[in-house]
């Protein structure tokens, strides 16, 4: 098993190819261009399809077309481009078509900037497009995890017939780390539902237009049952030094890496801090947080946003613990020292209460 030194954006591409993704469609946008470029070079060489589309909208619709035939398909973009894809993501959800969408987030709103940010949490975890649906969201915090989770995302997409989002940011995309890639997949899952022409059998159609409201309602509840299964079985998180922790940080992706540095720093001074890092943002590790709140009464939420995941933490803790939020939106990447100061300050509250 070879270790390779590779950037996050390239790792998304390589992992997808190894997961059997045979169709990639995308449009240039910083800071994820290296992903499309990697696919241009390697997807065609691997016998797959690469198209640089005329827009993000076209790219996601090409994904719909390829996914409808049963192919593993992917697109990628950064925040403004992901907004453009939302129409197509809603259709994927309605059609119940599997696909993987990579978002390498940048500062916003609007055109914003090209620096790392986590401002698209709401959009990613609340469906993002129109209509009643959810999208599983994975938030890698290392290039190795980009490789592993992207590979896994294709399985989740196929198993539940749903679009899956990889929620990353400019730092994750641009950063290089040593990675061991999963083996190339040998056999892809059979997809009886895929359109392949009727042959001698009955014709089929794939549509999201359901004019009969009762039938549309049934379709909505069917999706909900699927989402409930995902919430039950697919939650992922990483506990970090939580066993003896009196203060717990909740952070994901880049912010979680920085928070780890901060926790290591404060631990040297005897501060019993730990972290619960959500790996799936939807489904959110609500249960794990609720359980922690029985013992730990001080939580700190770090985000590179003005407070989006914060709301999920509030829901999960349901008023049973104090939450302090510290956010750096707009493309600012915080430092471990900055986080450690917050942890020190909040920890004092805990120790004062104890006295």
């Amino acid at each position: 098993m070879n270790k390779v030194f590779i950037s996050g954006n390239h790792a998304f591409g390589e992992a997808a190819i190894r997961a059997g993704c045979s169709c990639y469609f995308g449009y240039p946008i910083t800071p994820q261009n290296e992903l499309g470029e990697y696919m241009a070079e390697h997807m065609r060489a691997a016998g797959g399809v690469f198209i640089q589309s005329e827009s993000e909208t076209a790219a996601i619709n090409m994904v719909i077309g390829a996914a409808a035939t049963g192919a593993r398909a992917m697109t990628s973009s950064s925040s403004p481009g992901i907004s453009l894809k939302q129409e197509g993501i809603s259709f994927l959800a309605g059609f119940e078509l599997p696909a993987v969408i990579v978002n390498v987030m940048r500062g916003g709103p609007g055109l914003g900037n090209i620096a790392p940010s986590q401002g698209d949490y709401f959009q990613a975890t609340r469906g993002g497009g129109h209509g009643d649906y959810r999208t599983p969201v994975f938030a890698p915090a290392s290039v190795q995890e980009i490789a592993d989770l992207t590979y896994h995302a294709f399985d989740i997409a196929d198993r539940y017939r749903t679009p899956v989002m990889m929620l990353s940011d400019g730092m994750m995309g641009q950063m290089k780390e040593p990675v061991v890639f999963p083996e190339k997949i040998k056999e892809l899952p059979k997809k009886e539902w895929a359109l392949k022409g009727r042959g001698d059998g009955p014709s089929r159609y794939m549509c999201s237009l359901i004019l009969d409201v009762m039938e549309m309602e049934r379709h909505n509840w069917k999706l909900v049952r699927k989402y409930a299964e995902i919430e039950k079985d697919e939650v992922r998180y990483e506990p970090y030094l939580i066993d003896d922790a009196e203060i717990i940080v909740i952070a994901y992706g880049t912010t979680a890496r920085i928070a780890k540095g901060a926790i290591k720093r404060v631990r040297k001074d005897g501060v019993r801090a730990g972290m619960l890092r959500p790996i799936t943002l939807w489904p959110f590790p609500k249960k794990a947080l609720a359980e922690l709140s029985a013992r730990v009464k001080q939580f700190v939420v770090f985000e590179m946003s003005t407070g989006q995941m914060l709301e999920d933490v509030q829901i999960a803790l349901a008023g049973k613990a104090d939450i302090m939020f510290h956010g750096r939106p707009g493309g600012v990447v915080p430092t471990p020292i900055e986080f450690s100061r917050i942890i020190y300050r909040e920890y004092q509250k805990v120790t004062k209460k104890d006295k």
Partner: protein
Amino acid sequence: MKLKNTWPKYYKRDVVTHYCPGCGHGIVHRIVAEVLEELDLGGRAICVNPAGCAVLAYLYFDFDVIESAHGRGTAIATGVKRSRPDLFVFTYQGDGDLSAIGTAETIHSANRGENIAVIFINNAVYGMTGGQMAPTTLIDMKTTTTPAGRDPKYDGYPLHITEVVAQFPGVVYAERVAIDSPTGIRKTKKAIAAAFQTQVDGLGYSIIEVLSPCPTNWKQSPVDSFKWVSEVMTTEFPLGVLTDKRSRKG
């Protein structure tokens, strides 16, 4: 000569149409089903439906169909065809779908020379939403959003998208036809057959624009609306082959 009235193999039986009396969609649907049968393509055909009146075409088409978001038909068709080049892929789109909200997808799929066929129904109006101005609405024509008639200074001019894409090297066959008469219907069938054969031969993109009546939204009788296609619409949108590069590539 014996008159034949056979039912096309790839056209569903015993369904009630949702189209208005005098609507052109039913005629073009039948032509499509007949051509698929004659070229033996129905078993491996995938049609991409538009948003618009023909969104329900799968109720009648007896071959595989996927619906598209408004205007995205040729992007979806691109994904299907590139993923499965062995399938026969075509879109069925209206004027609002193809030449307003889907203009970018139309132009770029054409410019890439995707090996797909496009059936473009031009009835100069948004049908399903109740008769608003389309890009193809004629000058002075009244619609619900041009109540005093289309004023080119205010609303712009009728868009000739088939002429636009016909000049692209990647567009192998483009023709405008009208289903305004038995002759027009026969010519339409011939044009659609030519477009489908173009894809079978692996030559590239083809588009057939069909001038088609919408009596409900034109507020005309079916008979008058067919006459209007012949006498008025064809003066703005002249019929004929707009490009034929089949021999070049063949």
